């Protein structure tokens, strides 16, 4: 299997371990990721808050680059990038004039042949035996909750990604990897996302609720699929603990790291040492 790969800015910096662990498990499963060499930022929240044309043009340019490489599918692991790609496609597919205008802006022509998929969709779509046959380690003693956040599922008419209030796709994959997956009610609540840089107190409060609920259902770790969720829940956990006089110490793992653990990979291959809250208790 071969996909074009769009890591996005976060996976090359604040979410480096998501990139490392995703590449590592793909390598094991013989999935080839062909990174678009000169991909540019999708524009994320600052672009769609400032200019519709800019917010649509940046993702479409990246799709045109993947198309020119001859790819039909691009894997986008960052939930924020994935959301912007799907929105740009939705907008241009529903507005022919906009599509023409965007081609003029990017000085390129996107013919619309590239499908945007999230790694969870890619894994959901393949035979789960491909995952199972690499499992060498029993992780059934590990109790986890899956946290999807906002951008993977909302709004459903654009994203078309599992149920928008109670998705199961990540739960199923964590189960396939062998973990004990717990039910909880905070799957799609918001962590505050990139507003953390400007409204930190609010983000601390939203993340506090999420950590509290994970504790309440008895989870050993929270599994995520978005570098923004990870940053807020992991990097800011010491701040949250200090603010609310509590000691959570909940490790936050990317689903790719969880699968990598089941594959028997070393913690450093999966970037587990790059977390603020140590995952040592799970190893």
């Amino acid at each position, binding site marked *: 299997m071969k996909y074009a790969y769009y890591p996005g800015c976060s996976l090359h910096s*604040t979410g480096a371990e998501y990139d490392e662990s995703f590449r590592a498990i793909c390598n094991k499963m013989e999935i080839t990721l062909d990174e678009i060499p000169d991909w540019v930022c999708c524009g994320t929240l600052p672009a769609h808050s400032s200019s519709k044309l800019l917010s649509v043009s940046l993702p479409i*340019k990246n799709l045109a680059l993947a198309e020119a490489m001859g790819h039909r599918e691009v894997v986008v692991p960052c939930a924020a990038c994935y959301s912007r790609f799907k929105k740009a496609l939705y907008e241009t597919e529903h507005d022919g004039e906009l599509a023409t205008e965007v081609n003029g*802006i990017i000085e390129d022509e996107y013919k619309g042949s590239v499908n945007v998929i999230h790694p969870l969709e890619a894994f959901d779509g393949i035979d789960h035996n491909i995952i199972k046959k690499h499992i060498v380690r029993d992780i059934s003693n590990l109790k986890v909750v899956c946290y999807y956040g906002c951008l993977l599922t909302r709004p459903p008419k654009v994203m078309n990604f599992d149920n928008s209030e109670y998705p199961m796709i990540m739960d199923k994959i964590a189960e396939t990897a062998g973990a004990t997956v717990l039910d909880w009610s905070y799957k799609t609540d918001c962590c505050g996302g990139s507003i953390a840089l400007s409204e930190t107190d609010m983000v601390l409060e939203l993340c506090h609720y999420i950590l509290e609920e994970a504790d309440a259902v008895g989870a050993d770790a929270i599994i995520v699929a978005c570098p923004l969720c990870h940053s807020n829940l992991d990097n800011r956990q010491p701040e949250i603990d200090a603010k609310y006089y509590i000691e959570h110490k909940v490790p936050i793992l990317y689903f790719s790291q969880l699968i990598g653990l089941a594959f028997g990979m070393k913690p450093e291959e999966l970037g587990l040492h790059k977390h603020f809250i140590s995952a040592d208790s799970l190893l």
Partner: protein
Amino acid sequence: MNLTPTLSFAEEIRKRSGEDVNLCYQCGRCSAGCPTSYIMDVVPHRLIHSIRLGREEFILGSKTMWLCASCETCSTRCPRDIDIAKIMDNLKILSVEKGIKTPVPEVSAFYSSALNSIRRFGRIHELSMVTEIKLKTHQFMRDLKLGLQMMRMGKIKLLPETNATRRGIVRDIFANVKKREKGQ
């Protein structure tokens, strides 16, 4: 005091966003599900109603759209299928166009610094972006310890990932967008 609703503002929002606020029947579901409504001065369903009433100055001066986290819970749950998050985006754009001073300067400092980073390098470079935010907001100590720890972990890079091709791509896109928006 003008008691007659100014319908033109709702029309302006419809033209920009494609969303019709007159479909709203004030159920309040958007405000109920909004994770940040507790710090907003005008909660989302009130904001939508204010657009119908044409209270342009009141709306564009509010903090609401600047505190929106774009989680899109409102747009997902609206029984009238109004994309409220899209209206929030358009209110931010409109208020900048009208030169209204934002009541939440930290958020607009983040937006402009991130866009500058993209325009300069093609990809966001966290270190220079955060430095620019600090220069704009004068909050030099904020997240300093966190940032240093992230640098030690290799999660924030010293130098931007850039080259002539990427710079060329974003330079053209930003310039072409500006040209078209000015022409409107």
